[in-house]
């Protein structure tokens, strides 16, 4: 006799609306069904009514976290139609912003994973370490999210050279903190009990379900568009694709943690080798034709197909985010697991979630009383007080 347990559409763990129905026998999940569509915004139809320039801004707003990924993918598709080449400096600048996005996306996931398993220290640390990455993005592009950085033919703005030393320093510190987190997570028996051997996706299933990004690499599928398609500056810097064979929640987490270290290496090398020169080649028109762009977003391959009929608006603009193909793999993954692991297994694919607010405490009369640094200071004082008095 099985029981039906609904999760969502609004649930404290899943910040975006998705509706999951679990069939359970006792504590064990026997099957799962996922319903999407509560956040559908009709962007593919909307894109057909925008010009190519406007389209880049539109796709940037598909996701607050992957805003660089979608806009780069769309510009690659347009460049594929028109045969546009990109100046070397623009290729490097594009790569730097995209890897910074990978850093903050993965660190956000590490924090959320800590939140889901009830390990609040990891949540607090992870999100604190993520802040300097957003500061770096703000310094380069002017925004913490929705960067308006990519355009057909290159990037929109150039940056002065004196911007880079603090970012290199921030990357060194970020790598140091990530190594600390890796050390904490891999040596904590409680975390290992919660993650190891839970929600296994076999390599065969990963290929059959066509999963992407860290979800695929955590199951031993060695795919990464950055290496395979070699767009941007990825073939001119030294880095490696992280693959783990086990397919469980721990393996996917380890892939993301180690990828952050690789991303800091890519960013530092790109800054060091950043060529001088133009940042954009002029694009007069997108001719009639069909083009494809795909890149490795933080969650996996992001894919856009554009058909142009020679006007200034696309005839068809297909967009596919990685989560769309990662979600169906939840079914084989959750079968036979317990209810308590069901949300963690869902979160392991890192379903999309956006967060752009800054932290600031506001008093009831509307005046600002403390910013993030003040609150950290208060927290330190409180810890000191506890040490002395308990």
């Amino acid at each position, binding site marked *: 006799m099985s029981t039906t347990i609904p999760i969502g559409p609004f649930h404290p763990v899943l910040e975006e609306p998705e509706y999951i129905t679990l069939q359970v026998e006792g504590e064990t999940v026997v099957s799962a069904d996922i319903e*999407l*569509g509560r956040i*559908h915004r*009709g962007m*593919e*139809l909307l894109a057909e009514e925008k010009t190519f320039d406007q389209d880049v801004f539109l796709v940037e707003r598909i996701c607050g976290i992957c805003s660089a990924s979608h806009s780069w993918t769309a510009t690659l598709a347009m460049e*594929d139609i028109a*045969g546009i080449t990109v100046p070397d400096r623009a290729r490097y600048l594009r790569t730097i912003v995209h890897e910074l996005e990978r850093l903050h996306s993965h660190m956000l996931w590490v924090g959320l994973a800590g939140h889901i398993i009830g390990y609040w220290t990891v949540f607090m640390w992870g999100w604190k370490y993520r802040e300097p990455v957003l500061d770096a993005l703000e310094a380069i592009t002017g925004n913490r999210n929705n960067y308006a950085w990519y355009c057909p033919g290159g990037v929109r703005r150039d940056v002065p050279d004196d911007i880079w030393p603090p970012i290199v320093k921030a990357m060194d510190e970020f790598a140091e903190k990530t190594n600390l987190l890796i050390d904490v997570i891999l040596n904590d028996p409680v975390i290992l009990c919660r993650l190891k051997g839970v929600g296994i996706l076999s390599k065969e299933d990963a*290929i*059959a*379900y*066509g999963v992407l990004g860290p979800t695929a690499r955590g199951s031993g599928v060695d*795919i990464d*568009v950055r290496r*395979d*398609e*070699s767009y941007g500056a990825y073939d001119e810097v030294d880095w490696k694709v992280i693959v783990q064979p086990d397919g469980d929640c721990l393996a996917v987490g380890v892939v993301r943690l180690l990828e952050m270290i690789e991303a800091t290496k890519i960013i530092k090398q790109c800054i060091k080798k950043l060529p001088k020169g133009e940042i954009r080649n002029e694009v007069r028109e997108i001719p009639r*034709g*069909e*083009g*494809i762009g*795909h890149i490795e977003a933080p969650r996996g*391959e992001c*894919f856009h*197909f554009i*058909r142009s009929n020679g006007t200034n608006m696309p*005839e*068809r603009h*297909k967009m*596919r985010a990685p989560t*769309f*193909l990662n*979600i*169906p793999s939840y079914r084989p993954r959750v079968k036979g697991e317990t209810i308590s692991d069901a949300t963690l297994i869902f979160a392991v694919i890192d379903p999309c979630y956006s967060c752009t607010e800054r932290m600031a405490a506001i008093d009831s009369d509307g005046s600002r009383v403390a910013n993030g640094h003040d609150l950290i200071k208060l927290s330190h004082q409180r810890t000191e007080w506890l040490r002395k008095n308990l």
Partner: protein
Amino acid sequence: MSKKVLEALRMKFGDRVDIHEQSPKRAYVAVSNADWIAVTRHMYEVEGGRLTTATGSDRSTGVELLYHFAFDREGTVVNIRTTLDKPFPKIEALTKYYPAADFIEREIFDFLGVEFVGHPDPRKILSSHDRPADFHPMRRDE
């Protein structure tokens, strides 16, 4: 380009596939409705292509399906195209043989009303719950 993949397609299907190599990394292959499932299965089962997604579009000639198969090792994408007759487009589902096509084919059914014969779970996926069963938002003839 995936020369080997395209050569194998030519060898197996002869004149029935119309191959257009747009660039060293992109190729478009047009096939008839009758050969559709054989060609797409060949791409996955024999050549090891990964179905990244599919684009459905309503064009003057009918509803066009374009399945994008990525060959990760070569960094190439081979696109298989066919056009279905309106007003009731219908084709065999690839999901029967390749689970990755599940959500992809449900999305095309949802927005363009293509019936995927043999699909194990032919429900709508993204459009709103009160969408009339015969209304498909990306069809241009309604």
